[in-house]
């Protein structure tokens, strides 16, 4: 064991490095582990319009900071002649458009691209705001609020259930005359939400109004919808002001927190903001790339995605070769399958990518069988080694051509893909198979040929597995893990499965 310690240490380091790198890319950059590649991307455009009075104009539009359940991908400010700055504004951000002189109706645009993240129960992360002061409701209202609060308090366990029960009761008509008098508190959805916040403040529960946009593909002229958030001393809990239902609705982009005006215009009037929404599908991988750029991470700049697409496609294939090589290690050193040449089956498996499995096996067997027959005929001519190998190679190419032509005429276009077979490898296989045939008999030759074909087929299945190909392409550092595993198997001194058969006499003798 001590002898193997350096191997174990190096292997452990390699595997840890590979796994850590992969974990970083999954967690920090959001690269997907599974090849289910598409996610919804929303593009929201806010059109802020106002009437300028002819003098200097300053328009401030509140824009989302960190909408729960979404990640920013990109944002653009579009205007004609305005200077744009962006600044923090309390819990929101603000975009400022300014111009020295403007007249008439003006419109500026803010375009935001976000994608949905897979967080459960998304919510705001900002801290506990402190307990609110009990507002001055006025004498008659005060009594009704107190009655309502007492009633709800007796039916609830904690802040969340209290708030929920309160909202539900406020929304129910005719339950209680004192509550009914409170239901007149708001005539617009925004005012109603603010009124709920005020009533909650009577129980010293911190709550606030948030405004969001329901994301529906193709929406035009949409406006923001109010929602409520209640803080339970640990986290903000979003609730519907109509039902008290906990949690944000699906596809709800929180645009701003609080009741500060969405658009404030100095030197203008009639501010109006309209939203339009479009939805698209994008690959998570390309989203991660954009996001890494926004975060200033260099990892993806030096990833395969920064290469030209053609080169990417080459690596898409090349990176599967280590998988096949590892399979060969397993099958030869742990199982004990005999093959012609160490990695010959992998090259055959690469050719199977184009022909697909069944056709690949059929064509391979056909070419090797025909080639073997002609090779035995050549044997009678007593040729020297290199000219004989060259002859076999030429014969192999002619056979491939023949198969292509015949299959094309028969209308089986799959047969054409035989052109992608590695012909030198085929020629060497035929040569070695014929030698084994002569020296060790037909059985041994067929055994090794069958073994090669079996390994090639298994290699094809592994190398074309969508999950594995996705993993090695998006996370090439996983090859370090594979390398570590190879090092460990390099010191595997246990029995091969085939040795249980080879030493069956020992097993039979000792197991009685």
């Amino acid at each position: 064991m001590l002898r193997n310690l350096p191997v174990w240490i190096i292997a452990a380091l390699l595997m840890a490095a590979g796994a850590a790198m992969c974990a970083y890319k999954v967690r920090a950059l959001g690269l997907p582990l599974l090849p289910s590649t598409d996610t919804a991307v929303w593009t929201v455009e806010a059109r802020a319009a106002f009437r300028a009075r002819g003098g200097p104009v300053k328009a401030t539009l509140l824009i989302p900071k960190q909408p729960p359940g979404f990640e920013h991908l990109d944002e653009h400010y579009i205007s004609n002649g305005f200077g744009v700055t962006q600044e923090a504004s309390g819990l929101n951000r603000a975009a400022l458009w300014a111009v020295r002189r403007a007249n008439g109706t003006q419109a500026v645009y803010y375009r935001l691209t976000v994608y949905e993240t897979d967080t459960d129960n998304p919510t705001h992360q900002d801290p506990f705001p402190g307990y609110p002061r009990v507002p001055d409701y006025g004498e008659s209202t005060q009594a009704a609020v107190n009655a309502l609060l007492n009633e709800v308090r007796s039916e609830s366990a904690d802040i969340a259930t209290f708030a929920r029960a309160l909202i539900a009761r406020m929304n129910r008509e005719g339950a209680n005359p004192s509550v009914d008098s409170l239901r007149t508190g708001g005539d617009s959805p925004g005012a109603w939400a603010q009124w709920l916040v005020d009533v909650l403040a009577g129980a010293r529960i911190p709550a606030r109004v948030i405004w969001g946009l329901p994301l529906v593909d193709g929406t035009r002229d949409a406006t923001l919808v109010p929602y409520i958030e209640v803080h339970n001393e640990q986290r903000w809990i979003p609730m519907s002001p109509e039902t008290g239902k906990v949690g944000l609705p699906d596809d709800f982009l929180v645009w701003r927190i609080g009741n500060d005006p969405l658009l404030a215009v100095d030197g203008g009037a009639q501010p109006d903001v309209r939203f339009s929404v479009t939805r698209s599908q994008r690959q998570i991988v390309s989203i991660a790339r954009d996001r890494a750029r926004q975060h200033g991470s260099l990892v993806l700049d030096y990833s395969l995605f920064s290469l030209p697409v053609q080169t990417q496609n080459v690596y898409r294939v090349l990176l599967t070769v280590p998988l096949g090589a590892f399979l060969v290690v397993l099958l030869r050193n742990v199982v004990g399958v005999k093959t012609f040449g160490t990695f010959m089956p992998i090259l055959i498996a690469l050719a199977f990518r184009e022909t697909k499995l069944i056709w690949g096996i059929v064509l391979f067997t056909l070419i090797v069988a025909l080639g073997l027959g002609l090779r035995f005929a050549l044997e009678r001519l007593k040729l020297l080694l290199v000219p004989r190998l060259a002859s076999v190679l030429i014969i192999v190419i002619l056979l491939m051509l023949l198969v292509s032509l015949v299959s094309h005429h028969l209308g089986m276009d799959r047969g054409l893909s035989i052109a992608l077979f590695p012909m030198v490898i085929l020629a060497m296989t035929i040569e070695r198979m014929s030698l084994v045939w002569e020296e060790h008999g037909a059985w041994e030759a067929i055994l090794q040929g069958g073994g090669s074909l079996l390994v090639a087929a298994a290699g094809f299945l592994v190398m074309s597995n969508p999950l594995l190909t996705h993993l090695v392409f998006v996370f090439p550092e996983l090859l370090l893990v594979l390398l570590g595993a190879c090092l460990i198997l390099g010191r595997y001194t246990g029995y091969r499965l085939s040795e249980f058969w080879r030493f069956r006499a020992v097993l039979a003798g000792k197991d009685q």
Partner: protein
Amino acid sequence: MRWPGTILREAGILSMNQRNADYIMLNNKRRLYPLVDDKLKTKELAQQAGIAVPELYGVVKTEHAIGDLEDLLGEHRSFVVKPAHGSGGNGILVITDRRQNRYVKASGSMMSADDLNHHISNILSGMFSLGGMPDHAMVEYCVQFDPIFEDVAFQGVPDIRTIVFRGVPVASMVRLPTRASDGKANLHQGAVGAGIDMATGLTQSGVCQNARVTTHPDTGAPLAGISIPGWDKLLLLAARCYDLAALGYLGVDVVLDREHGPLVLELNARPGLSIQLANRRGLLPALKAIERMKTIPTSADERVALGLDLLVRHAPS
């Protein structure tokens, strides 16, 4: 039902992976391989050390020199052609007699001069050598094998394989050609391996195609009970071969010649595992005992004594 791996480990069976990783890689220095892979070099070294080997008639190094084969052979009627870098007995051609321009193979079939020349040409082009490198063809004395194995060998030359670990002989078997092995004494090719009791030099039952056999599949004669003449001398010869090449894990192939006694045919840096089946005994107990020893005697006599002593101590109960 117990796990098969446990049974094999308890029986001390050395696996292919362990042979490669723990014995060949750790005990056989890579730079020493050419000494045994090149049979010409082995022969030279052996002759310098006074170890008996089959006489070398000559070497064919070029295509052109094939034509001079007749001169090279001179009066010798029987001879063996083998690739200097051959492996697994491939490419070895045994000619037992010459009749005009035709040659009689060990199997009794005839071969034309053209066939022979083509065979040598194949050897030169590297068809039988490790890695397909161009090679030389050796032409040497055809061993007139001792008749003691006559009943249990189907043509060809039987030889005695001994595994020598750090100079200590740990196991032996006699390899007997069969019809299936085409006169070759290679277990891969279907030859029979019969175990040898190291202490007495008596053959035991054996193995053929990994299955246990008690009789020769072609002749039907029992394998066990043949006493090998000069067994002590043979063990000593095997142990001395360690001094030639300093390969820690070595297979020594010896043939018994009617006139010349035991001759070293070749050394093998990667001897196979079937010797364990032939002897019905795993190699691991002896190998591990030798690994644990701090010093190993320098004289070959003492190493042979040590090997016999180990076998008694690690005999399966």
